[in-house]
């Protein structure tokens, strides 16, 4: 009997250990996923912040550009740069045949003409001289230089030809290839060419959408929460509102996209693809989140404060506006920021209202067509070019950076300003 008991006890303890181990490994798994995730994004994304440049000698020959010796600013603007640009690329290999010349041209981005033009406009004294100019390399060479491109594939499966690789390797040997910080990633709008694509348009689109969302959702949500928490009589109607809010908070986001499409675009005829419509749609989505957060922080204000104010002869409205609402503000604000962070990461509803359109201008107002950061991630992720993979990861890093900052901010507000009621 006693021996049996010992055996049983040992079994019980090992089952205890097993259970604890399961719990620990569950946590470990969850954290492992997070780690893999972040590692993957960073390891593929960090290279996007560097951009590869070819240093090409350009002969600013006045004759080829149809310019006289002392051109005015306007002349410089209107001059023909195509020929000298092309020529400087061809000069990389003077023995190149026509096909190879074509390949030479494709080693740089189609912006090369503009880059050469900018160089001369910045320094008109270069006219007639030859100078080394930094030219953006094509995205495939960019990837080759960063070591992301499988060079050992057979030539017909690569987008980079053997000839281009040969020239490129020569340039690398001569120190004519350089990697520099990729400023254009932040200042250029979207582009079909990976080496020229930037997040400026989608970034502004996100900012405008969030501002519209904030402007609508915050006041409405706060007022609604105040009403429901402080003034609403307890009856079936307010119960109904409450159930409604809780349900809305769990409705899939894509349904809000259908709402935006079916009502805002089809009925109200608001302009498609704009941050305005995006912001309104997102605001409807975040509304319940903010209302719930605001109500929770109103609820946390102890009734004794209300009673004290009421006993001083303040009206219900005065009590609420002078005491309860200010005291609940930290919780409300941090809830709002978290709601906005959610909205910032939302993709599906924006796709439905057309914010997925290709936009290669930087929007100046909420009424201009734009994409948003998460939608930009989606657009680039669906693109076939290898160069977009690192762009996607970099864009994710920017987006995650924003979300982290917003969440930290919410935390700080909560901890710094929220009073603890005991």
């Amino acid at each position: 009997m006693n021996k049996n008991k010992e055996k049983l006890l040992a079994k019980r303890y090992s089952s205890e250990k097993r259970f604890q181990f399961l719990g620990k490994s569950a946590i470990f798994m969850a954290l492992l996923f997070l780690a893999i995730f972040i590692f993957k994004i960073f390891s593929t994304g960090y290279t996007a912040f560097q951009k590869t440049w070819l240093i090409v000698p350009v002969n600013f020959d006045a004759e080829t550009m149809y310019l006289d010796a002392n051109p005015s600013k306007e002349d410089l603007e209107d001059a023909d740069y195509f020929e000298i640009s092309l020529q400087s690329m061809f000069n990389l290999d003077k023995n190149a045949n026509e096909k190879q010349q074509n390949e030479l041209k494709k080693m740089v981005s189609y912006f090369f003409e503009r880059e050469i033009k900018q160089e001369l406009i910045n320094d008109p004294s270069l006219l007639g001289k030859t100078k080394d100019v930094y030219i953006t390399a094509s995205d495939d060479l960019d990837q080759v230089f960063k070591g992301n491109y499988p060079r050992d594939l057979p030539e017909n499966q690569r987008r980079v030809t053997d000839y281009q690789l040969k020239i490129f390797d020569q340039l690398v040997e001569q120190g004519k290839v350089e990697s520099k910080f990729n400023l254009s990633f932040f200042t250029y709008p979207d582009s079909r060419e990976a080496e020229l694509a930037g997040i400026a348009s989608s970034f502004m689109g996100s900012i405008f959408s969030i501002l519209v969302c904030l402007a609508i959702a915050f006041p409405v949500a706060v007022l609604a929460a105040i009403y429901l928490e402080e003034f609403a009589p307890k009856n079936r109607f307010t119960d109904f509102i409450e159930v409604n809010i809780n349900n809305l908070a769990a409705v899939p986001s894509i349904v809000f996209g259908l709402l935006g499409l079916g009502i805002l675009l089809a009925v109200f005829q608001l302009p498609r693809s704009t941050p305005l419509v995006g912001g309104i749609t997102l605001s409807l989505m975040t509304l319940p989140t903010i209302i719930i957060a605001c109500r929770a922080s109103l609820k946390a204000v102890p009734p004794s404060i209300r009673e004290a104010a009421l006993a001083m002869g303040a009206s219900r409205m005065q009590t609420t506006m002078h005491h309860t609402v200010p005291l609940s503000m930290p919780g409300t604000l941090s809830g709002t920021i978290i709601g906005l962070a959610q909205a910032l990461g939302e993709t599906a509803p924006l796709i439905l209202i057309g914010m997925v359109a290709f936009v290669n201008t930087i929007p100046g107002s909420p009424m201009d067509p734009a994409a948003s950061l998460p939608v930009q991630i989606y657009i680039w992720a669906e693109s076939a070019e290898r160069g977009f993979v690192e762009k996607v990861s970099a864009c994710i890093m920017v987006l995650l950076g924003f979300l982290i900052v917003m969440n930290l901010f919410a935390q700080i507000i909560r901890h710094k300003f929220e009073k603890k009621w005991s």
Partner: protein
Amino acid sequence: MRKNGVNMIKISAKNVDVFYGKKQALFNINLDIEENQVTALIGPSGCGKSTFLRCLNRMNDVIDICKVQGEIVINDFNINDKGCDVVRLREKIGMVFQKPNPFPKTLYENISYGPTIHGMAQSKQEMDEIVETSLKKAALWEEVKDRLHEPGTGLSGGQQQRLCIARAISVQPEVILMDEPCSALDPIATAQIEELIDELKKEHTIIIVTHSMAQAARVSQRTGFFHLGELIEHGSTDKIFKNPDNIKTQDYITGRFG
């Protein structure tokens, strides 16, 4: 078990100190508990009597910041030793709490819980027997025998507490700790529990923490008086109530403070 007219010592606490974080809750407690007797621990709120009770089956382990020092010897074995197995200890020392806390399960499952985890029954029949005898000992059998498979939370407060007692005795513990078992009950239920305690002491050693001095006087043979974390006085209940040595005890007994 009588030896020269003196009861065997079941539990003996030596130099027990308890800390909650930095705050000391018990100061150097020395107390011997006699076998098959009811020992009552009395004292004003917050004096540490419940804390001391929870030391005896190491329930204080549950509280992270709580630290116990000193020796508590049960059956020649110091339970504060590192080698002590809490699970085995608690099998031998049952506990009944202030508020009845039946599990949200059926009556039957409530009682069979302990025997199951400790593997005390080999068959369904044996288990039925254990459940029946436990309920009978707790004087609850007659009231609930027809609804053993209904939830335990459906009973009245007094019945729930007797259910908890039945649950505690189902594993045949040597000692039963009771932490103000009647404070949430009405007088009739209290009387039933008190009767039960008197019955139980034949087979178990009982330590009861109580607020009510009348209850201590009614049910216990020995009494310890705690005040501000110290054991002021202990001895036979008769002596403590009729002729205490310490002036504080006298004041408390006569209702001058507390």
